[in-house]
């Protein structure tokens, strides 16, 4: 009556657990979790099963279950991620903040209902306040309103601004380079946004004329 596939899930462990009042051991939970993942998920559209296999960073942060990582482990994860950051090929960091605003508003991309090859959004407003005009913003990440202004960026091209410009690019490219278990996607590293899109988001955050800094 139930499918064989489903029976293979948790059921396989009932024998193991018989007479075990204290609850399952870590190993039993590990094995059951792997079986459950295997029996429960299937590919759909562009969402392939390899998405379930975490890389080293995600593995460590999953296991931590919200607790802070061991400092040495965190540092090594951050170093690994920092090494992936690719600075823009042509040395240009700042694009068009108007385009950046559109990308920040757009929450689409890479779900099983999205088509391959379509440009993804940045989902930025889902988690951050950015420009003052948008009232519908999330609070998972810090407010980015006045991002450039608060950091004293009056000309993103000036040498004075270089450190903050580099950091911001790096943070967008791979947020885990600065915070091992950041909740923020690795937009450049994971291929969510391309260089041109990242430049536009940089402009939204750092261009003095962007409403983020001018209003």
């Amino acid at each position: 009556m139930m499918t064989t596939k489903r029976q293979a899930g948790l059921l396989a462990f009932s024998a193991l657990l018989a007479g075990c009042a204290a609850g399952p051991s870590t190993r039993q939970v590990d094995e059951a979790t792997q079986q459950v993942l295997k029996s429960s998920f299937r590919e759909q559209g562009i969402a392939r099963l390899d998405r379930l296999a975490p890389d080293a960073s995600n593995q460590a942060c999953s296991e931590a279950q919200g607790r802070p990582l061991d400092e040495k482990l965190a540092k090594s994860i951050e170093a690994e991620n920092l090494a992936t950051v690719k600075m823009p090929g042509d040395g240009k960091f700042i694009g068009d903040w108007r385009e950046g605003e559109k990308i920040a508003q757009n929450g689409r991309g890479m779900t099983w209902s999205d088509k391959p090859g379509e440009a993804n959004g940045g989902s930025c407003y889902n988690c951050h306040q950015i420009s003052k005009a948008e009232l519908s913003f999330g609070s998972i990440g810090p407010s980015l309103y006045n991002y450039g202004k608060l950091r004293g960026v009056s000309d993103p091209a000036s040498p004075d601004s270089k450190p903050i410009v580099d950091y911001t690019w790096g943070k967008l490219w791979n947020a885990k380079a600065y915070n091992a278990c950041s909740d923020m996607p690795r937009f450049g590293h994971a291929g969510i946004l391309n260089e041109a899109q990242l430049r536009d988001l940089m402009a939204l955050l750092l261009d003095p004329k962007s409403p983020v800094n001018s209003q």
Partner: protein
Amino acid sequence: MKWSLWGLVLLGALPMAATAQKSTAEGIAEYRAMLADGNPAELFEARGEDLWKQARGPKKASLQACDLGKGPGVVKGAFVELPRFFPDTQRVQDLESRLLTCMETLQGISAAETAKTPFGQGEQKTLEGLVAWISAESRDMRFNLPQSHPQEKLAYEVGKRLFYLRGGPYDFACASCHGEDGKRVRLQDLPNLTKNPGAGNGFGAWPAYRVSSGELWSMQRRLNDCYRQQRFPYPGFASDATIALGVYMGVNGKDGASIAPALKR
């Protein structure tokens, strides 16, 4: 659904003058308060009660002999104790999964076929009504999921693993949005599902009528869309993964009151 005069009272009490400038949060609270009276989920509840009693399927039988965990035919209070372990299937099952079993054994409607059916169509539509009515029969009762069977304990631990599992191109886990207090995505409050009151409030709101789509969503459908937004692969309907997450949330929400079927964005 209770039709109190609450909505009216609230409407009268709220300052409706256009001059009153409210904060965004106050504005949203006002919007929700105005809608609180007249939740269309009630239309689904009515359909569900009929579907429970109607002789249907190849075996032309009703679901009135279905055991939702408190004995054959007992509906009241069943919802707040699910998911739980069922000896006949040797499996931890949530409401949707259990209904698949009952529809198959009592009515001869294939569980595998229904699980494969797209949401909102065919027997999935039947389930919308059933979960609305069955959950409504436990309205205001407190969650008390059993954790005595080893499989129930295992399901909780597996659910916890899945809750914290980061994956996909965005590195999202359930915990990315639902692991802390006081967070929002856009303007929607995100319940912290790791403890109360968030777990009780969050888990206890589904099934719910979603105003954005005008549909009645079961917890299985809610979790399916969470995984879509998480950029994960597709979780099977009533799969062990989505059931285990239900156990994790429901146990964390112990003693929270069920308001399902609620009204959601």
